[in-house]
């Protein structure tokens, strides 16, 4: 029996067929890794636990939810992704996955992730996960991203939810410590994203996205990076005073924070962002004058990972040495 000619759309026959790797790319695996890591830290640091298999399923649900939100983002942003060197190789602008397939994948993935979270952990964690997906896909991607230079300041909340969700999965509630972990990522997002935007500003300008360097200029962006860094670094020490962070976390937050501030000051003093984007599309490709912005962008990822790794080491590996501040968790 032969396959009917009409079984495949005419345009689809000539298009490159989607492979499973294209769907994986649709889920932004690099972002997903950081989401899983911070959520795991929130879960481990929380004063409570669930069955380890249930915890593993809950973390998987969170990863699926983050991936689904990424797919919805790529579906909606296909037009601007195609105009930016950094994103034009994504599966949707490449034509490997259609916009409608990306939406379908994102919506089904989001629904399954929330169901899995509700069943494996609790309704509080599931509700927070559903809200974070909605916040990223609708509030940030569809609402803020193309309208205001404050897009990633407000939208950063979406990426700040994972440790709170991990915490809620373990305890069924949200406490002050969970809010502090949320706030650390929330305050970290602007300097992190604007450091990248500084040396990719031409890309954003071409796509019509009003990132801070495009809308307000490079000098204002460098100043805002410094201001947010001055707020972030002291705030990141807060877990030490509530008892959540011990000696290891204190060293990581103070030492790592000092280096963060030094790099932010260097960006502020530099001319980063004045020359537009680097010609190359790679994430870390940079013009000579933008080197400090690129370095801060790269280091900011390591800094956040360091903070949460310290929490995991203290609460998951028994390395917590209380410093006598606040109540021990």
């Amino acid at each position: 029996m032969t396959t009917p000619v009409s079984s495949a759309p005419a345009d689809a026959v000539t298009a490159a067929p989607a492979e499973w790797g294209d769907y994986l790319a649709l889920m932004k695996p690099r972002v997903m890794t950081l989401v899983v890591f911070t959520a795991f830290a929130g879960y481990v640091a929380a004063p409570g636990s669930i069955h380890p298999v249930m915890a593993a399923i809950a973390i998987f649900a969170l990863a699926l939810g983050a991936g689904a939100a990424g797919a919805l983002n790529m579906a909606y942003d296909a037009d601007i992704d195609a105009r930016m060197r950094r994103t034009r190789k994504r599966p949707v602008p490449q034509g490997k996955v259609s916009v409608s397939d990306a939406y379908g994948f994102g919506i089904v993935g989001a629904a399954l992730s929330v169901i899995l979270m509700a069943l494996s952990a609790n309704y509080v964690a599931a509700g927070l996960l559903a809200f974070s997906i909605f916040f990223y896909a609708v509030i940030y991607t569809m609402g803020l991203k193309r309208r205001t230079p404050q897009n990633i300041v407000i939208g950063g909340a979406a990426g700040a939810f994972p440790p709170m969700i991990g915490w809620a999965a373990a305890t069924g509630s949200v406490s002050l410590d969970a809010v502090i972990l949320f706030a650390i990522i929330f305050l970290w997002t602007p300097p992190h994203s604007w450091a990248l935007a500084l040396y990719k500003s031409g890309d954003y300008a071409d796509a019509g996205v009003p990132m801070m360097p495009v809308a307000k200029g490079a000098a204002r962006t460098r100043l805002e990076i410094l201001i947010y860094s001055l707020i972030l670094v002291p705030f990141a020490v807060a877990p030490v005073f509530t008892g959540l962070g011990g000696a290891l976390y204190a060293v990581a937050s103070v030492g790592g924070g000092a280096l963060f501030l030094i790099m932010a000051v260097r960006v502020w003093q530099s001319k980063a962002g004045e020359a537009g984007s680097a010609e190359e599309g790679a994430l870390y490709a940079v013009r000579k004058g933008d080197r400090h912005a690129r370095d801060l962008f790269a280091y900011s990822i390591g800094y956040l990972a360091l903070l949460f790794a310290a929490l995991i080491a203290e609460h998951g590996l028994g390395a917590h040495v209380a410093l006598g501040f606040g109540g021990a968790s």
Partner: protein
Amino acid sequence: MSEPTVQDASKTTPDLTPEEQARRAFEKARDRRNKMIALGLVAFAVLIFTITAIRLYQNTGGAAG
């Protein structure tokens, strides 16, 4: 590198037009995708079954929740 064998040559389909070859490639990719979707559904069912089993075990006093 060794020379192409008779077996390698039998895999080529010189009688197919480029359009037919493209269609076959598309259909193979679609089959792979369908199998991945089926695998995903089975994995989801296994996860739900696992959660149910653990909840039953916990709720019948088998282990502390």
